């Protein structure tokens, strides 16, 4: 079941109605059943994988929870008898025990994800590697289907396990409630990647119908539909047109396609998030924010902090921090400091772990070399910008450039936009080589004449489509500026008169229905009289 569809709207309406009339105690059951109905609608065959991961995570969680409890009780009982050393010793011993459980859970869950998602990629590459040294590789290519949302719920399960290892909270003792946490339908398809301590209790608590919250949720859903149908799906037409056959295009058309793809993904993904968060809000649940106007970022590093925030947060807490603060990396730091001096040497281990994070994020997007390249692209820009910062600042001072004004900030935003857009060649290009080739042709032959000779109208969109795109981007921009200034747009709307609000809602629905890019489309030529 697609988020942006009439079926989903009907599904949500029925589910919320049932949810609000169900007695308090059973409300969470409605969410659980609804989530599984949603999952079954999308892929009934692969339901097993979700249940399997849920069960493994739940059981390992229980074991970890029990170990934590035992240690706590023991420490409390023997509070005064134990020396500091003994306490430390005890903690170390339980930590070791817990590590085995964590390793098992992560290996099973992550292993499943890696197997399903990357087996063919790894196998194929190994085969060609073997062929390179004259051996015929025999790793078969399997026909593997990826269960819906596996990339998301796997990360969610690992976070839960690791948090339990760290003793952040208590383990869940109700399998069915935990299943709801793992399968909650608004966020199973594409996130946000939830944290147990933030989401679970919200799911289990009953929520009453709250008029204000429901209207705000519906507004958010509508906003998501607008992003997706007015902008994302419309841009997609031209983006696909160029990327499917990039050879005849050059210069700014290629850049337009890459930048357009970035905007498309933004509108698509953040629109989907708006729908997810809106639906959850109707039900009284707050999902984590996943996008914070990334195109207002003044550096790539900031861009990735504003883009897919829950994935970044996950990587930070479960990859970046543990790696950077590990003993191995500390030792590495000592050594690099000796070789490269204090400034760079101190930062090198951090850079390494950050590079690993970007590679992981890249590969997480898909099993292809181009995603590896995408990760390297972003990682390299960030590292070099930090390394070059002192020189850059000197340069700015010498040139007498004021960095505390709007125009400089605007320049930084545009710079970030251009760099990000170039990165999109990797994530959308058919392969790594095509992406590099397109980048090259963009720079070598910018061909600014395409702005005047109507080239953009040959990409499957007519000028009316471009009007819609342009106007909606303008709307996004205005809303974005307001939000950057700390104005809560939906609260402002709630302050307006009833009639104005109604007109706004109706206008939004009508605009989505008419100007949305959906359906088979009508072309006048079809109806020209077709012979007897």
């Amino acid at each position, binding site marked *: 079941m697609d988020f942006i569809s009439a079926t989903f709207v009907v599904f949500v309406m029925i589910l919320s109605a049932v949810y609000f009339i169900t007695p308090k105690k059973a409300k969470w059951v409605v969410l659980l059943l609804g989530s599984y109905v949603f999952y079954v609608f999308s892929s009934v065959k692969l339901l097993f994988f979700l249940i399997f991961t849920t069960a493994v995570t739940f059981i390992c969680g229980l074991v970890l929870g029990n170990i934590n409890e035992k240690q706590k009780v023991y420490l409390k009982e023997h509070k005064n008898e134990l020396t*500091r050393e003994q*306490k*430390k010793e005890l903690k170390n011993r339980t930590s070791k025990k817990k590590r085995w459980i964590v390793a098992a859970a992560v290996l099973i869950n992550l292993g499943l994800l890696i197997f399903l998602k990357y087996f063919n990629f790894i196998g194929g590459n190994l085969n060609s590697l073997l062929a390179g040294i004259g051996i015929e590789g025999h790793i078969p290519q399997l026909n593997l289907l990826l269960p819906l949302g596996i990339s998301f719920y796997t990360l969610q399960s690992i976070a839960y396990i690791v948090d339990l290892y*760290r*003793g*952040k909270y208590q383990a869940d003792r109700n399998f069915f409630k935990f299943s709801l946490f793992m399968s909650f339908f608004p966020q199973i398809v594409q996130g946000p990647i939830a944290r147990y301590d933030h989401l679970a209790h919200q799911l289990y608590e009953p929520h009453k119908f709250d008029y204000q919250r429901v209207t705000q949720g519906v507004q958010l859903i509508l906003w998501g539909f607008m992003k997706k149908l007015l902008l994302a799906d419309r841009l997609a037409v031209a983006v696909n047109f160029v990327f499917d056959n990039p050879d005849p295009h050059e210069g700014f058309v290629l850049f337009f396609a890459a930048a357009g793809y970035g905007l498309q993904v933004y509108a698509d993904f953040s629109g989907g998030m708006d729908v997810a968060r809106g639906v959850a809000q109707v039900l009284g649940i707050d999902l984590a924010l996943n996008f914070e106007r990334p195109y207002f970022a003044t550096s790539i*590093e900031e861009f990735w*902090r504003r883009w897919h925030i829950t994935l970044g947060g996950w990587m*930070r*807490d479960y990859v*970046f*921090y*543990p790696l*950077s*603060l590990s003993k191995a990396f*500390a030792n590495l*730091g000592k050594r690099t400091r000796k070789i490269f001096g204090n400034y760079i040497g*101190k*930062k090198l281990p*951090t850079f390494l772990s*950050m590079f690993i994070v970007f590679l992981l994020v890249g590969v997480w997007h898909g099993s292809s070399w181009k995603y590896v390249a995408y990760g390297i692209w972003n990682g390299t820009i960030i590292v070099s910008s*930090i390394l070059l910062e002192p020189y850059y600042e000197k340069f700015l001072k010498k040139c007498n450039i004021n960095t505390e004004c709007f125009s400089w900030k605007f320049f930084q935003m545009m710079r970030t936009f251009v760099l990000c857009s170039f990165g999109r060649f990797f994530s959308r290009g058919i392969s790594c080589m095509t992406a590099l080739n397109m980048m090259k042709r963009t720079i070598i032959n910018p061909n600014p004449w395409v702005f005047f000779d109507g080239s953009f109208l040959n990409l499957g969109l007519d000028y009316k489509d471009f009007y819609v795109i342009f106007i909606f981007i303008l709307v996004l921009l205005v809303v974005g500026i307001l939000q950057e200034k700390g104005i809560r747009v939906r609260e402002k709307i709630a302050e307006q008169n009833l009639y104005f609000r109604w007109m706004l809602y109706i206008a939004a629905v009508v605009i989505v229905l008419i100007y949305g890019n959906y359906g088979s489309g009508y072309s006048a030529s079809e109806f020209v009289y077709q012979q007897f």
Partner: protein
Amino acid sequence: MKEQLLSILNDLRPDVEFEKEEKLIDDGVLDSFDIVSLVSELNSEFDVEINVMDLEPENFNTVEAMLELIVKMQEEG
């Protein structure tokens, strides 16, 4: 101890007025790079073992919170 902490912080980010900030993490004043450098500095300067599970925003949002964390770690050993 506070002076020591402030001097570390000012070395790390001379552009921030630490004593005035209340949401160093939540507002994104300190990013994850800063945190990593900060933690390794604190660990060596104060002889504590702040590790990953202590990297919660509430422990680093203000100078006071950081001090509290350090004291707590020193007590626990």
